[in-house]
């Protein structure tokens, strides 16, 4: 990637770099050529790295005080809140940090959907990102079980029972997951073990995600390739680091707002009641970031069908790069796709709202409409629009689009095929 070979200045640096080229890697990361037109939607990669590290650091600290046992877990969480020095702060950062992590990852994903960052040659980056997203959901779910409140217990019961929908082996798989004949102490114990493991798996995938990113380089708001050699790029440091740092500061203000002023607004008050296997709370709802998928699950009047559609809603994203037939990446130049994009955003938000409402009456009808549209967007809209749409003229280079303040048709080439 680097234009020229990196040579350490000091003698010891050279000695070390000859044996382990870490300094070369550092130089690559510092000088990494980045499109100069990246907007603030591109700062969420850095924000997400911050979120992951925050969860790991606060999580390691919480594990020093938490007890993973059905009889003691709830009390140990209250012990963290009341007795441990700054325990309340660390736990609130960790629990709200999960929500902030998902907020950032959804913006990151929808940025990719808008600017076509999932398209060739970046399919592998996209797929690794989805694997990270799946692991995030698993980690968040297991983490929510650990306080062993009513929502923990019944959330765990409902989610693990999803696997009992599998024909023939479903019940054996569920018992195997539980390590008991219901959600019980063995379940809590293994969830703690896995909850501690998953962030480090995510960290490994993040390294691969960034590595895969550094092969083709960043996509950008106009979605065209960088011309080399050209003035289309700036070095990552200091141009992108300072922009990322500013965005991160803004993000941390919102984060701190939740932690200090409404630390429980994203949670559910039923989880401050200790787990009781004899009583199900009247209204079971998952955390907000899983609501759209929960709405899809409930919209199907068949157990297996609901489970298949819910997982299908996530797994269809893995083939997205091949469902979208348009060669133009950025929605800026796709007038038809742009409208469907916003309809899709509204559809997902509506599904999220339906997931929080009881599954009856008009809510159920709208959830069904939303579910059907969700799949139509991927299976029908994306392939067809890509083939029929007449895209707008695309700028010749990033510099041109930057200097003219947008896509100036008089400077643009007319054929979109050379992308």
């Amino acid at each position, binding site marked *: 990637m680097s234009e020229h070979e990196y040579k350490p200045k000091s003698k010891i640096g050279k000695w070390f770099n000859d044996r382990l080229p870490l300094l070369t890697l550092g130089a690559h990361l510092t000088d990494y050529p980045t499109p100069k037109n990246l907007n603030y939607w591109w700062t969420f990669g850095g924000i997400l790295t911050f979120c992951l590290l925050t969860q790991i650091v606060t999580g390691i600290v919480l594990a020093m005080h938490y007890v993973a046992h059905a009889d003691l877990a709830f009390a140990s969480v209250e012990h963290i809140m009341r007795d441990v020095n700054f325990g309340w702060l660390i736990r609130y950062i960790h629990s709200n940090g999960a929500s902030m992590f998902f907020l950032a990852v959804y913006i990151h994903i929808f940025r990719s959907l808008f600017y076509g960052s999932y398209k060739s040659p970046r399919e592998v980056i996209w797929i690794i990102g989805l694997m990270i997203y799946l692991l995030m959901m698993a980690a968040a779910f297991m983490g929510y079980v650990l306080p062993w409140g009513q929502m923990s217990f*019944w959330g765990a*019961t*409902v989610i*693990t*029972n*999803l696997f*009992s929908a599998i024909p023939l082996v479903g019940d054996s798989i569920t*018992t*195997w*997951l*539980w*390590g*008991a*004949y*219901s*959600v*019980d102490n*063995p379940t809590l114990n*293994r969830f703690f073990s896995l909850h501690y493991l998953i962030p480090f798996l995510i960290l490994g995938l993040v390294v691969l995600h960034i590595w895969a990113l550094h092969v083709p380089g960043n996509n950008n708001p106009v979605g065209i390739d960088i011309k080399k050699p050209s003035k289309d790029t700036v070095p990552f440091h200091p141009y992108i680091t300072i922009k990322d740092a500013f965005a991160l500061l803004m993000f941390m203000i919102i984060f701190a707002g939740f932690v200090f002023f409404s630390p429980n607004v994203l949670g559910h008050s039923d989880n401050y009641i200790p787990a009781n*296997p*004899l*009583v*199900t*709370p*009247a*209204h*079971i709802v998952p955390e907000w970031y899983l609501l759209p998928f929960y709405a899809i699950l*409930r919209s*199907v*009047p*068949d*157990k*297996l069908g*609901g489970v298949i559609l819910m997982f299908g809603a996530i797994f269809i994203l893995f083939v997205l790069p091949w469902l979208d037939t348009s060669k133009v990446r950025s929605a800026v130049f796709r007038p038809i796709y742009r409208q469907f994009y916003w309809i899709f955003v509204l559809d997902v938000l509506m599904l999220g709202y339906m997931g929080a409402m009881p*599954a*009856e009456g008009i809510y159920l009808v709208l959830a069904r409409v939303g579910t059907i549209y969700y799949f139509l967007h991927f299976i029908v809209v994306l392939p067809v629009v890509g083939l029929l749409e007449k895209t707008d003229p695309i700028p010749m280079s990033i510099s041109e689009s930057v200097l003219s303040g947008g896509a100036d048709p008089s400077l643009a080439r007319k054929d979109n095929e050379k992308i």
Partner: protein
Amino acid sequence: MSKEEKKVNRRDFLFTASYTIGAVGLGAVVWPLVHQMNPDKAQQALATTEVDISQVEPGNSITVLWRGKPVFLKRRTPEEISEARAVSLSDLPDPQKDEERVKDGKDEWLVMLGVCTHLGCVPLKDKGDFNGWFCPCHGSHYDVSGRIRKGPAPKNMEIPKFEFVDSNTIKIG
């Protein structure tokens, strides 16, 4: 394809034998790692529970915990029994006669797992459209025999293995 000789030689044999032994060894290592997650001996030891039913009046029910799951023991009134038996099997998503869900001669006692067959919540008693149980999680309705009538649950509530130790005691499991 070139016309190289394709006879099996020593090296092919060694490859196949090594892979086979390797696969068997890997399986032998993986299985304990997988099986350790299944219910352990302490969990299996909790497999039976004895319940004193002498205090339960007709029309009432009690709930006990068995293997971490609630079990409903309902002493049904004659009206409830006849209501359960009047239902036509064609109205049931999971057709099963009420007689098959109780012990012969003890048909006032309905003993079943209080676990919704949809996603495992505990249904509420005396609720729903069929005078039986209603699951608040995703809206499944069960009748006085604990059979699914309406909603996403696929099956009737499960009848565990149980027996009458004497006229006042039921052993579950």
